[in-house]
Each structure stands twice: as C-alpha cells, then as structure tokens.
C-alpha cells in the first residue's frame, strides 16, 4: 500500500509542473499589466513604463521569468500583488481568502456525500416507485441547472421575497460585536453561509445521487449479491456490506474529480454570493492582470486538486483490492 502511495505521489510532480507552465504562459499572453496600470495616466513617459516593466521583471524572456518564479516558489515566496492592497504579499492574500472557500466547499461536499449516498441507495432499492421517480427527477434538474443560475434564484427567493437569509457576503459588517443578528459572530457566519451552502450542496449531490443509484442497480444485478442472499445473509448485510462497497467505487472516483472541478468553479459561486474566497479574489486578479495573484491562486488550487486526487487514489485502492495489488 505504501509503495502504491509513493508511486502516486511521484506521478504528481510532472503533472504539477505541466499545469504551472500552461498557466504561466497563458497569463503572459493575456496582455500587458504595465499598460493596464498606466492606462489612466496619459502623461506617463515611455521610460517610466520600461522602468516599471523592469521593476516587475517583465522585461526578461518568458523562460527566465518562469524559472525565477519557480525558484521563488520553492522558497515559499509567491511574489507581491501588482494591484491589490498596495502590493501585499500573495501568500498573505491567499491566507486571508482561503478559509471561507474551504469552509464552503468542504461543508457542501461533506453534506452532499452524507445525503446523496443513502438517498441513492434507497432510490435504487425502491426502483420505479414514486419515491424513486421524485428523487431521480429532482436530481436530474439539479444536474442540469448551472450553479450560478440556481444561486441567483435562491437569492431572489430566500433573501428578497422571503427575507430569511442575507443576499451574500460572509459576515455582517458592523463594528460592535454585540449587534450581530443572532448575537454572536459564528452564528452570523453560519446564517450567511446557509444559502450558498444549500445551493452548492444541491448542485454537488444531484449527480452523485444519480451515480449512486445507477451504480447500486448495476451491483445488485451481480451474482455475488444473489450468492450473498443464497447464503442466508440478511438484506441489511447484503446491501450495506456486499453491495455498497462495490457501488462506491465509481462514486469515489467521481467525488475526487468533482472536488477539483469545484475549486475551479469557485470563482462563479463566490461571485454570485459575494463570498470573500479565493474564487472571487481570482476574478478580481484577472480583471487587473495581476500575474502574481493569478499564479498564486493557480498554484494553491492545483496543489489542492492534486491532493484531492491523491486521496481519491488512496481511497480507491482501499475500497478495491484489485487496484491496490497490480
């Protein structure tokens, strides 16, 4: 098992470098940040522009820039922002914004898995019943509707029409902590989280329910399920031991891939809910061609995605002995 993990880890290194190269090249193609910085100042001289470019190292050939970035990154330095908070360090900036993102994503993912797996199993067990029809239809809807649309509808319904939840942001902006809506900041944050978490959970769980259901139906047709029944095992053992373990194999793969995709989807979700996370920061950084911030967030999201993939691989190996062995 440890050899399996080490091999998986080694695969990650070239993958990580490849992603860095692509994103680095893509940002440099996107435009000239010096022009953007100086666009509002018509009197700036060409020499000042050259000086600025030199200051940021943008006058070097692209491969030199990349290797400089790489060596700095190894030392834990992701550079300074061009445009946000007066050139603050990117590491500090990411540190400030990563919390809310992870809070939202991990909570939504855990809730989605905790709900989707039992619902999918029940749906498969009661195939073609009214309950199954309802679950399938709802999940299909949830799979089809994009998160941002679901988010906007949820804000209209729960904030503007019903007025139960705030329309966005992380916490109520007040100076006196005793004035929080529910009395303390934690509850206030949870109150703000309710709608985004709900929407995100629904968006994640919908496809997982369908996957668990179809995977379970497939497994329940297998001979080893009949054989388990023929040995006199109770229905509970047959379903939750023999069938579930097999049915979860594709679900683990999907959840792992989805976790990476989710972080990539964070810019949209967080913009809709005005959520102060990495996703929204990323959107701000791209509009300003803030190369270090774009790269920094890419590095972090890449690392998190790769870790998620690694966890998926390990879980996969744990669930299915046929993978662990080869």
């Amino acid at each position: 098992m440890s050899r399996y993990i080490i091999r998986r880890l080694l695969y990650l290194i070239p993958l990580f470098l490849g992603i860095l190269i692509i994103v680095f090249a893509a940002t440099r193609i996107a435009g000239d940040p010096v022009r953007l910085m100086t666009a509002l100042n018509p009197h700036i001289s060409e020499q000042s522009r050259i000086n600025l470019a030199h200051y940021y190292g943008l006058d070097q050939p692209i491969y030199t820039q990349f290797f400089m970035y790489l060596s700095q990154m190894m030392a834990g330095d992701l550079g300074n922002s061009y445009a946000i908070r007066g050139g603050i360090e990117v590491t500090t900036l990411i540190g400030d914004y990563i919390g809310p993102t992870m809070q939202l994503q991990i909570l939504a993912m855990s809730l989605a898995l905790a709900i989707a797996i039992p619902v999918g199993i029940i749906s498969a067990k009661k195939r073609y019943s009214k309950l199954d029809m309802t679950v399938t239809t709802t999940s299909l809807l949830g799979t089809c509707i994009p998160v941002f649309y679901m988010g906007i509808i949820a804000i209209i319904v729960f904030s503007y029409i019903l007025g139960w939840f705030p329309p966005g942001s992380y916490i109520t902006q007040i100076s006196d902590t005793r004035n929080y809506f529910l009395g303390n900041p934690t509850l206030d944050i949870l109150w703000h989280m309710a709608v985004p978490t709900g929407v995100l959970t629904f968006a994640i769980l919908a496809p997982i329910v369908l996957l668990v259901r179809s995977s379970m139906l497939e497994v329940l047709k297998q001979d080893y399920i009949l054989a388990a029944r023929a040995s006199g095992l109770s229905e509970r053992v047959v379903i939750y031991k023999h069938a579930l373990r097999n049915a979860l194999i594709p679900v683990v793969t999907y959840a792992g891939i989805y976790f990476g995709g989710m972080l990539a989807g964070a810019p949209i979700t967080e913009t809709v809910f005005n959520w102060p996370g990495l996703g929204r920061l990323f959107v701000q950084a791209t509009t300003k061609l803030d190369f270090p911030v774009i790269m920094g967030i890419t590095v972090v999201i890449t690392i998190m995605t790769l870790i998620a993939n690694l966890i998926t691989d390990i879980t996969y190996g744990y669930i299915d002995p046929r993978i662990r062995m080869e």
Partner: protein
Amino acid sequence: MVKKILKIENLKTYFYTWAGIVKAVDGVNIDVNEGETLGLVGESGSGKSVTALSIIRIVPSPGKIVEGKIIYKGENLVEKKEKTLQDIRGKEIAYIFQDPATSLNPVFTIANQLVEVILRHQKISKKEALEKAIELFRLVEIPDPEIKIWNYPHQLSGGMKQRMAIARALASQPNLLIADEPTTNLDVTIQAQILELMKNLKKKLGMSMILITHDMGVVADTADRITVLYAGRVCETADTKTIFYNPKHPYTQALLTAVPSLALKTEKLNVIPGSIPNLIKPPKGCRFHPRCEYAQQICTKKIPELTEIEPGHKVACLRATEINLKSPLGGSNN
C-alpha cells in the same frame, strides 16, 4: 418407499417486464429424493435457473412466484416469511452459482466471506469460524489453505474460485445442494476435477443435490435421475439410464443427439432446429411443437400433461406412446 426431501408442485414464476409477462417457469413439477442427485437439464432459457432460484426464494425482481408449492421436508417454502427463509438459505439448502468469477465478492478476502457465512448459521467465535473455514478448504482440496484463505478472489484461478464457492456452500452442512451449472465456465480438465469433487463430497456429507446443466455428458456421470425442462415446463423425468437409453420425449431425444461424442462418430454435430420460444407469448399446445419433427395438428392445440408411462418415468408428450423414439446411444435397454 424413498423419502422425498423436496417436492415442487405446479410452480409458476413469472417476470413482469415492460414488454410483458415472461412465463419463465410455468407449471413445473419436480421431486428430489433423499440422498440422490437430480439432474435438471435443458437449453439456456428453459427455466432451470429460475426454478432453482425459486426454491430458495431469491428470484430477482421483477420475477415473482405466482403459483405452486415448494415443499421442503414437509413445509411449504412459498408461504414462509423472509426471516425464516434466511435461516433456511445456506443452512438447509445451499447454492453454487455458475460463474465463480462473479459469484464471489471481489472486494472482500475469502476469509472474510467464508467466516461471515459460517457465523451466520453457527454460534461460534470468530477464531473458531476461521479454523472451520480452513477445515472447509481442506475438504474441497485447496492446497495451502492457511495462505489461500487471505487472498482476494481475483488472485485465485477459476477452478480454485469454484472450490472456494463450494466451500462456502458447504459451510453449514446443508441437506440439499443446488449446483447451477457449476462447471460451465471452467476448463474441461478442471470441470472433471470439480465434478469428481462434488460427487465425493455428496457421498461424504450425505447430501441431496440438484445439478443444473445443459450438458448431457455432465449428468450422465453424476445424476441418479434426470428431469428435462423445456420453455418453463417439464418434458420428461426418469432415472438417468432410462433418459439416455429409452427417451420418450422428442426433445430429450433431440438433446441426446446434440451431444458431441467420440463414440457416436457422427460427421456433423446435430443441432435442434430453431431456438427456445419467446416466453411472453409461448406457442399454444405443446411448447416444443414448432421445433418437433413428430408434431401433428393436435400438438398445436392441446397442452400435454405430465403422465407416468411406466413406474418412475413421466413424460409430457401427447404422442409418447405412438412414436417409437430411438436413443442415439443405441437401442432400448429394457
């Protein structure tokens, strides 16, 4: 008088599909005597497996037993509750499936699967159960049982897997063993080994057995009596010798002709023309009549009843006594 361990009367198991009701088993009568091996023979789709699954009531959805009695040791299993049936399955009646590659759960070790089944029916400790599992492995002649037991199914060969499946079926010393084509998916040499093993185990443990197969060669060597099924109905039932040397149903005779055999030295392998009928709308009258070379007008209208033409020999053919069938294995033996 021989005691009957199992008596199936007029069993009907239908599958309710979108396309219609599939009458997979439609009025089957089978007896199994204590201590004997009954061969259940027929083509694919003749209802052998569904009959067998019906006995222990694990017919997968959308299949349902709609009529009939399954009397095991004097009790009708059709009326039993699920909880009672769970106690019977594996303990009284055990089942071996066709494909050992799919009948063992790929994600658990063999020890895990065997111990689970042993503990289900016996009140012993986990450690004792493990010892018992290893003992079972010796019984089914698996080499190095202490090591092999910790393997996963995919690490074993097909023959080993089937031995392991047999060990699981024998875990609680069942009185009746149902083996559903236990050798079909194995190499020919392994087939012979497994059949030999099963024959020996049956003798050793004093079980009764139902051996399902489409291979007449397999039953010739193993079964005491044979019941031939066609399209969900019984065609003929008699002791093995009678079936082979004095078949009275044209379908039985056709099956015998279709067996490739070195002794018969026929140039071409005989086939039964046509295929098993659509069981949603089975042919009227005798279900075999569209493929039967002896069929007459009456066969298309009247359903033949299973009637005893001599002691222990029952046939469901309207013309059983009129036509003089010849066994491909040579003349009548009586």
